[in-house]
């Protein structure tokens, strides 16, 4: 009996179809993962309005106030100017409460081998497509020590995405390409993205759009190569809240 019980424990856990897909392709879209899209949008609008005169808005790695770039909230929401709002979760207990209530930690643990304990590392709010060329988050996200292989990026869709407003895109299977160009070796981000794109194409991979509806959460793996597509039509919003989770480093 003892031997049977031991063998049963050694059986690999049954993985969900989502976990299989995540392991194979490097990303998965959790359809309808959160229902309170309107609540997220309402709270985020309040955060942007309340912080308009604070230098918390980022454009090309520099921080600005909305006043400094001549933007009101309405203009921020309707004019693509490559603005983003990093660490938005730290600006509002209400938003953090909404995020916590979604229990994304549990969904992520179910996707990863060994079901690690995950915690929120950082956040970014985008009113439009990030328009960011191909990159991997693995060595770009470094708010505090964590196990890099467990890093997960989550894109909470607050608007639907399409080719018109610039959907997320990714190179399916790219997380399995072990040798990649690293940003630290390049003076220019564009050169890094270019060489990473060539590396992916030469590995036989192809970029694909990852479409999402409001309430979907696209989750990508630590070394998954992805980006925000250039929109075909400017100034169509694609609001999204990007969260990064990881398992804390052992001390």
């Amino acid at each position, binding site marked *: 009996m003892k031997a049977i019980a031991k063998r049963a424990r050694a059986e690999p856990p049954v993985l969900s179809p989502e976990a299989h897909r995540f392991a194979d392709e490097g990303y998965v879209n959790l359809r309808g993962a959160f229902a309170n899209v309107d609540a997220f949008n309402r709270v985020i609008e309040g955060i942007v309005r309340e912080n308009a005169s604070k230098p918390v808005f980022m454009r090309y790695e520099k921080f600005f106030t909305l006043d400094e770039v001549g933007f009101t909230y309405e203009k921020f929401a309707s004019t693509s100017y490559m603005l983003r709002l990093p660490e938005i979760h730290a600006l509002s207990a209400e938003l953090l409460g909404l995020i916590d209530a979604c229990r994304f930690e549990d969904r992520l643990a179910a996707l990863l081998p060994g079901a690690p304990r995950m915690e929120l590392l950082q956040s970014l709010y985008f009113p439009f497509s990030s*328009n*960011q*060329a*191909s990159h991997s988050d693995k060595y770009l996200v470094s708010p505090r020590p964590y196990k890099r292989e467990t890093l997960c990026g989550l894109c909470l869709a607050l608007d639907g995405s399409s*080719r018109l407003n*610039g959907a997320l*895109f990714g190179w399916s299977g790219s997380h399995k390409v072990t040798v990649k*160009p690293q940003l630290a070796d390049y003076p220019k981000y*564009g*050169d890094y*993205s*270019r*060489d990473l*794109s*060539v*590396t992916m*194409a*030469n590995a*036989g991979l*192809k*970029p694909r*759009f990852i479409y999402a509806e409001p309430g979907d959460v696209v989750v990508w793996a630590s070394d998954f190569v992805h*980006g925000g*597509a*250039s929109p075909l039509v400017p100034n169509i919003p694609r609001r999204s809240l990007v969260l990064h989770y990881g398992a804390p480093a052992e001390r």
Partner: protein
Amino acid sequence: MKVRLHVGPHRTGTTYIQYAAFANREALAEAGVLFINKPAQCVGIPRALIALDAEGALGMFDQLLAEARSEIAGAAKAQAVLYSSEVFFEADPRQRPQYEAAYAKFLEGLGKRGHEVEIVFVERDLEDLLTSNALLQTSMGNLRYVGPSATAFLEYVETYSWLKSMYFASGGTLHLDFAALTASGDLFANFTKAGLGVSLASPRSIDPSIDARNSLTDRQVARGLLLAPIVNWLELFGSVPRFELFNAAQPLRPPVSEALLDEVVANVPMLRDTFRAVARNAIDSFVKHHGVATAA
């Protein structure tokens, strides 16, 4: 100072001339010509003009000139300035009046700074130029010239004709013949002698791959045909311009076997024939429409 603007056009050895001139900046300065491009392929001034920002173009000119004066040994001896970019031929014909106004303002600004502008233009047989351009574009995955229609070629000729006329009408022009520049000897040496009145005793040679990148083999054209889907996707959606992709640390490989690539390569000569024929049709249409005489 005399400012020589070498405006190209494309496919007349501009890349080679720019890299060679950059490698020989000190020798050119000693000979009286300050080559202000930095880097060798310096596109800021025409890009600013295309964006209709004459003040921005003038600011860049001032900056490049100041940097060249401080960085290049022998700069004090120079009596003339050379700036070179074929991007002057990338202006959008839909913004013709605005571009012409920006360019006129740019010339006026240079005049106010005490400079006298002379255009350096290299003329290449138009059929050769159109064919060479179509091959180059195809090698980079731009397939707009692939087909029997002359429309894309004709649009190119229309823009080329407009810009050439505008540059020629804007002041003094030095009109060089590409066939003569390439007939014998080194293109750069011939260019400096004919265009600048300078003979460098022993010019520094440049990386041979720079020239090779601009000569088009059947294999390069075949690669462009096969890579077109991903090159265009990345340019349109992925924020990676096609020129950048072809400058990557490792070459972009076509997504097919070497055997299949060889089969495509074997078909490229037919494409060359087609390009040349369609280019001829486009020139004939242009001449018929505009009622101009040609020697061809």
